[in-house]
Every structure is written in structure tokens, then in C-alpha cells.
């Protein structure tokens, strides 16, 4: 039951939901949540491949680095969201069109 393929199925669904969130949300924080879902799916995949290859250490390293980079990305992105809110009074990504030509 808990084979590599079943892990791949679960993470594919997680990744798909994340992709759906990123493409459909108007709220900038919502888009960020989609990115977190995608990163989580990728890091579970790394660890699953490492485990079924005989507990390889490289996959674990990759997923630790993914987690750290996700934390850095979340900090910067939320800072951007807050400054967007200060500038426009909304965090709707459709409203921030100052750079539109």
C-alpha cells in the first residue's frame, strides 16, 4: 500500500491543488499559500525517492534546503504583500497595475 507510487500520487494531487490555487486566487496571500503547497509536495517527493532508494541522505538534504528557502521566500513575499497593501489599500493582484503599459 505505502509504496513509492502511492506517495507520488498523493504529492501529484497536492502539487495540482497548489497549481490551481496559484492560477485562480486574486488575493496575494492566497497565491503564496499555493506556492507553499507546491513546495511541500516537492519536498515530500524528494524524501520519498530517498527513502525507497535505501534511505539516501541526499534527498533529506534537498528537502531541508527547500524548507529553509521556503521560509526565506515567505518572509520576503509577505513583506511585499504588506507594502503592496500600504501602497494600494488592497492585496488583490488584479488591482496592482501601475506597471501596465
Amino acid at each position: 500500500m505505502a509504496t513509492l507510487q502511492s506517495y507520488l500520487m498523493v504529492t501529484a494531487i497536492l502539487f495540482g491543488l497548489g497549481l490551481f490555487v496559484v492560477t485562480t486566487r486574486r488575493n496575494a496571500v492566497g497565491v503564496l499559500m499555493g506556492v507553499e503547497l507546491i513546495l511541500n509536495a516537492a519536498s515530500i517527493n524528494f524524501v520519498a525517492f530517498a527513502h525507497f532508494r535505501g534511505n539516501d541522505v541526499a534527498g533529506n538534504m534537498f528537502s531541508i534546503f527547500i524548507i529553509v528557502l521556503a521560509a526565506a521566500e515567505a518572509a520576503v513575499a509577505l513583506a511585499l504583500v504588506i507594502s503592496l497593501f500600504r501602497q494600494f489599500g488592497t492585496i488583490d493582484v488584479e488591482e496592482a497595475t501601475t506597471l501596465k503599459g
Partner: protein
Amino acid sequence: MLKDLVFLGTAVFTIASAATVAFSRNILYSGFALLGTFAGAAVFFILLSSDFVAVTQVLIYVGGVLILVLFAIMLTSKIGDMNITNRSINYKIAIPLLLLFLGMLTQLMSGGSWDFGEEKFQSMVVPIGNGLLTEYLLPFEVISIALLGALVGAVVIVRREIK
């Protein structure tokens, strides 16, 4: 047997909370549902014998990223009109994209052989500790500098201009 049951329960729980993140109309509920997804991922890490990664996941995602996300929600939306804070657009693009992507993945997974058999649980703390100080020392240092730069950058972005 027990492992399979735990896997199945965690899979259902994780996907259900991810679906709540995706389809809830209230952004605050999406934020809280993200907690379920992160916790489910931590259980997956333990099942995959990566106990260290599971603890890191709980500490950084649940303790850090999720709190940041909730802070951002509370700071940027007016509590009064909370019900329509998470509207969706672009279904015409999103659904074909999703179907294309899932089709590609199932195509990839149905070909080839994926029979790796069962693996025993084995704690990965000692190999990770050794790896971080020998083979992966350079990436470790580089990522610490990247993290520092990102945090300083975040502070610079949100601070108010002093004239």
C-alpha cells in the same frame, strides 16, 4: 499493516486540507487549513524515516511560515468583509492547465517500473548531521547567507521611509 492505515489516513487528511486551502471562500479558513497540510506532510516525513526533516517541518512551517501568513492576513484584510476575501478568477485557464499537468504526471507514472519494495525505518539524524558538516558544507553556508539576505531584505521592504 498499521503503516498502511496511517498512510491512508494521513493522505486523506492532507488532501482534504489542501482542498480546503484551494476552495474555501474565506482566506482565514484557507490559512488555518494550511496547518493541516503541513502537519500531514510532517507525518509523511516520519513514515519515510526522515525524522529530522519532520521536526524541521513542524518548527519552521507550522511555527514560522504559518504564523507569518496569518499575520499577513490579519494585517491586510478588513475583518468586517471577511466573507469575500478570497475570490477566484481564471477558471478557464486553470482547469485545462491542471488537467494537462495531471495527465502528464499519470502518463509518466504509468510507464516504467516503480517497484522498489519496502524499506525499513531508520533514523536519519546522524547521516544528516555528518552530511551537513562534510559533503554539504558549502551549500549549508551559502543557504545561511541567502537566509540572512532575505530576512534583511524583508525588513528593508516593509520599513517606512524616513524623510
